[in-house]
């Protein structure tokens, strides 16, 4: 493990590179509203922080975050208040895209462009642009990494366990689907899966149980590096290291583990919270009526899916400063 | 030894004490008399540090004291037996007796020593059969009273205050209590004794102080020689004859209740009797003889085998709801635990048993409800006469009247009264007797349990003597006298 992680004050969000053209020149003043779930989780906290940091870089943005909450009813009220305040653009990471669809639609109807971050609204009329990670792709990346490693080792009939995040989120189901599909190409399948709740403690509890249930494991995919801290502690306590572990999201801590080379955690597949920075930038461009200068079109595209990258010991250097502190 | 002067205590809306004087000498039994709500309990609570007086002084052995809390009072050497039993149900007898002054070293309880000491106190009280390790919640009211007394004795007190200690006790137990009191006074301990039973005052008391409406109206009367009529008129401000209303002239009507072979294992067995309309049937017996259980079983509140027929129709066992709907009513023995909604108003308490009578399709007619409650508050002279007052701010006797008032509503065929005059003062008692007789005269059957034999004999038309869960004798009240009944209930001799 790293020695004093909390000592290194790398709290600052990664500084987004300046735009290739004159898009960074101050334009019309725009008010950007921002609503996200409660920051009780490292990844979400990084989202909120990145959004704020990026907004601060532009003197022409007035950033208006509202109370983050995990209660759908309250998030609806929060967005209502932003609509009432007549912001120029709305960046929304909904607790649940389906449940917030209605209110996003209302914002769009009120003439406010909605930038949908990460969890998608089912109704395309509800948003102007969607930007988010590729949950299915994340599962695929993890599946390929594990499939390949086990193929190389020549294992047949491997025991593969999966520790999910919150089971009721669509993103969890997408990740699992991708993982399953990728493994299938190697002729493997998931032996057991359990859901934790994105917290260190639940990760620890679920991992403890799974390690008991399976005396020999060949590979483990943990959806989330935050809960991964607890998972790793459980693995350590049980004194197990016979398997390959892959993480998810790409926290700085997970990267340090990978870098150390001594951990069971050999890789993690990214789901980067930098998307929040991009979302703010897009919101600004849309509100100011600008396009993305690297593209030919005069307007921002309708959807942008970030690729999920696989971080291993080989390429970890390159990613270290994009990693978020959980 | 103890001198209280000009004590004033104000509660929201009530001046409970309005300048009371009291002086108690070492080694005497000083009796405190007064109507329900006169302020007796409040006065002794001031002494026990439960209430802080608004005005007035307390002197003890010549020094000015001001007990600021129960702890303080105990330290001064005042021990108190409260009117409402204040025991912790979940703890054992020994733990209750020594609560707050446990046998302990460095915080660790010495259970053995505690049990030994508890046994000693209990034996001194003549109740060696109560085990120190028994959970108090499982004891009968009488046994709880003994534990309360044991607690007071366990302190090395110089003044013991007893607020109606005999209310839950039967004849024999009272005698036992008096023995202890004499023992105590012999050692120079002073006793302040509150009771509504004048004959007790005569037997044990040395001097009497009379309270009326929160004021002292007489100090230091000789307990034995003051005529009853004088005491009663001091208490009530009028002359009350302590007599029972005359029995009905006309013969009782149809059978209202017929009980056959009623049995509840462990409590009573094979009980059979009947009650006619307009008849008062009394159950006489010792505490613990099973009378309350018989009433509960008749009422359907306790499982029992055998048949209960009310007005010609057999009742399904175990259903209070049906019993009430068919015209029964029970005024239970422990008013606080079993009868009252302490937080609610007098009105809500009175009408609780006959809510459907005040409602149409479930909708309450509140005006009629209030009118009826007001009528009953007046009729029974519940004081203060404010039907909206929460019942918990009433004195004990007035609470008892509210319980009775509940069953004066609606059309009742049969009333079951368990110790209806417990804690009720002399004047109000006469009124209650009149009310009960009045009910019977209207054709209602009454089944009455009382631990005071004269009350049973004076009020009932017919008396059943209960002993150890069985009816051992039945006779018209006129054919019995107190001595014979006492002999039967104690020795089992059916004369």
């Amino acid at each position, binding site marked *: 493990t790293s020695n004093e992680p909390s000592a290194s004050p790398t709290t600052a969000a990664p500084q987004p590179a300046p735009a290739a053209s004159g898009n960074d020149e101050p334009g019309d003043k725009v008010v950007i509203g921002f609503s996200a779930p409660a920051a009780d989780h490292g990844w979400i906290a990084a989202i909120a922080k990145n959004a704020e940091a990026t907004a601060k870089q532009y003197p022409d943005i007035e950033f208006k975050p509202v109370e983050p909450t995990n209660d759908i009813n309250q998030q609806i009220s929060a967005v209502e208040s932003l609509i009432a305040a007549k912001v120029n653009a709305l960046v929304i990471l909904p607790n649940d895209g389906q449940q917030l669809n209605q209110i996003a639609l209302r914002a769009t109807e009120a003439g406010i462009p909605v930038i949908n971050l990460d969890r998608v609204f089912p109704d395309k009329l509800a948003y102007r642009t969607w930007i988010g990670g590729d949950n299915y792709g994340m599962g695929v990346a993890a599946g390929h990494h594990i499939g390949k490693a086990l193929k190389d080792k020549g294992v047949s009939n491997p025991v593969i366990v999966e520790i999910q995040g919150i*089971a009721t989120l669509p993103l969890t189901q997408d990740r699992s689907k991708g993982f399953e599909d990728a493994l299938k190409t190697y002729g493997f399948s998931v032996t057991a899966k359990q859901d934790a709740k994105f917290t260190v403690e639940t990760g620890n509890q679920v991992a403890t149980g799974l390690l008991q249930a399976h005396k020999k494991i060949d590979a483990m995919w943990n959806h989330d590096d935050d809960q991964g801290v607890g998972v790793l502690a459980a693995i350590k306590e049980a004194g197990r290291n016979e398997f390959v572990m892959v993480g998810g999201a790409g926290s700085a801590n997970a990267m340090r583990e990978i870098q150390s080379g001594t951990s069971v955690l050999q890789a993690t597949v990214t789901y980067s919270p930098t998307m929040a920075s991009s979302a703010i930038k897009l919101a600004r461009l849309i509100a100011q009526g600008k396009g993305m200068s690297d593209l030919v079109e005069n307007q921002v595209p309708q959807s942008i899916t970030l690729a999920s990258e696989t971080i291993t010991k080989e390429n970890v250097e390159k990613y270290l400063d994009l990693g978020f502190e959980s | 030894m103890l001198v209280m002067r000009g004590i004033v205590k104000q509660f929201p809306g009530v001046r409970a004490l309005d300048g009371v004087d009291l002086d108690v000498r070492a080694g005497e039994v000083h009796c405190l008399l007064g109507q329900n709500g006169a302020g007796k309990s409040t006065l002794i609570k001031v002494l026990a540090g439960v209430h802080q007086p608004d005005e007035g002084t307390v002197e003890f052995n010549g020094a000015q004291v001001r007990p600021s809390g129960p702890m303080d009072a105990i330290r001064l050497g005042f021990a108190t037996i409260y009117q409402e039993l204040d025991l912790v149900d979940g703890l054992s007898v020994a733990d209750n007796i020594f609560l707050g002054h446990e046998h302990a070293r460095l915080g660790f309880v010495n259970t053995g020593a505690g049990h030994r000491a508890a046994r000693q106190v209990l034996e001194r009280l003549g109740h060696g059969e109560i085990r120190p390790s028994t959970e108090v919640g499982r004891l009968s009211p009488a046994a709880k009273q003994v534990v309360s007394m044991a607690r007071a004795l366990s302190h090395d007190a110089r003044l013991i205050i007893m607020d109606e200690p005999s209310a839950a006790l039967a004849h024999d137990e009272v005698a036992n209590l008096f023995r202890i009191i004499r023992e105590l006074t012999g050692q120079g301990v002073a006793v302040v004794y509150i009771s509504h039973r004048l004959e007790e005052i005569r037997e044990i008391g040395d001097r009497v102080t009379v309270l009326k409406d929160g004021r002292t109206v007489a100090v230091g009367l000789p307990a034995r020689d003051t005529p009853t009529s004088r005491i009663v008129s001091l208490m009530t401000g009028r002359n009350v004859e302590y007599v029972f209303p005359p029995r009905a002239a006309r013969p009782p009507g149809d059978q209202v209740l017929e009980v056959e072979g009623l049995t509840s294992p462990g409590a009573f067995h094979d009980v059979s009797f009947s009650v006619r309309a307009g008849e008062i049937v009394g159950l006489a017996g010792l505490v613990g003889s099973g009378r309350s259980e018989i009433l509960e079983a008749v009422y359907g509140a306790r499982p029992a085998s055998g048949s209960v027929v009310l007005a010609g129709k057999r009742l399904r066992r175990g259903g209070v709801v049906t019993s009430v709907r068919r015209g029964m009513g029970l005024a239970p023995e422990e008013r606080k635990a079993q009868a009252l909604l302490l937080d609610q108003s007098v009105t809500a308490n009175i009408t609780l048993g006959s809510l459907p009578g005040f409602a149409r399709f479930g909708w309450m007619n509140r005006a009629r409800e209030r009118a009826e409650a007001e009528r009953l508050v007046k009729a029974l002279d519940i*004081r*203060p006469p404010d039907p909206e007052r929460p019942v918990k701010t009433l004195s004990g006797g007035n609470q008892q009247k509210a319980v009775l008032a509940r069953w004066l509503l609606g059309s009742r065929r049969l009333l079951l009264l368990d110790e209806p005059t417990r804690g009720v003062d002399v004047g109000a008692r006469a009124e209650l007797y009149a009310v009960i007789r009045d009910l019977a005269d209207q054709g209602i059957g009454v089944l009455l349990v009382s631990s005071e034999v004269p009350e049973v004999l004076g009020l009932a038309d017919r008396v059943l003597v209960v002993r150890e869960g069985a009816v051992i004798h039945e006779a018209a009240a006129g054919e019995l006298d107190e001595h014979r009944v006492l002999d039967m209930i104690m020795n089992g001799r059916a004369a």
Partner: protein
Amino acid sequence: MSDARRPPAAVPETGGAAPPPARATLNSLTGARHLGLLVALGLLVVVGLVTRPENFATASNLVSILSLAATIGVITVGATFVIIGGGIDLSVGAIMALASVWATTVATQEFGPVVMAVCAILVGTGTGLVNGLLIAYGRLVPFIATLAMLVAARGLAQRMSDRKTQLIDGEGAIAALSTTRILGIPLLVYIFALVVVLGWILLNRTTFGRRTYAVGGNPEAARLAGIDVRRHTMLLYALSGLCCGIAAILIMARTTTGSSTHGDLYELDAIAAVIIGGTLLTGGRGTIIGSILGLLIFTLITNLFILNGLNTSDQLIAKGLIIVVAVLLQRRNLKERAP
């Protein structure tokens, strides 16, 4: 002694005889209790006016506060009955979730909005009835029975929905409850108000309400007074379930979805609102008005946070402090559990 009716002379003489002051004190006490809540609410309003003068006092913000309060408000009405009746219901949020999921399954949606609404109400009431049966006749402790129901109902809801959020057609009649406005106020706020009024009437003007106080205040006395305590207890939980069913319709209208995640931790919020409102957790005392005021305080706090964009941590700290202050303003009076 045949003069059963007492001579009037004695009456003015007695100690506690002066009823007018007594009455006054009593009333002012009750008043004071709600006064504390009103003062707390008032303070929050002042804070809102000072910090966000341009947004806070707008009609749209007030409507938004009421819409937010509606769902949990309906549940709070049911919870008030249960708690006054001496029980507790931890399963409210889960029942609401289950009702919302059941009412939005493909099979149910086919039959249209009325059937969906009826379905939600039946599921809610039925589940509440199961609680009631377990507690009243199975003699389970309410805390445990409803905790078990919480767990089981959420599990069932997840199972029925396959853990997915079930969308309702956005243009349907259910969603219209949230989008249709009369006098600028969405229908669901009217439903909330109606439930509060009916609840108030039921509690204060009917024998059912009287019995609720009796059953909670002293179950043994209620039983001996001829009240069927078990049946009543069972009905109380069914009533709470009914409220959850209605709340399910409201949340379906607001989110246009049914989901097993709806109403997470509503049980704590509802109980907190009821207790801040002055209802005793031990039963026998309490008011609907108090509960609703308590709830509005919570909602207003949230609204102020939203308007002021406070970060979560500071919000939580502030919320804790505000709760304490609000309650200190209306100190519990008279007999309470702890000293």
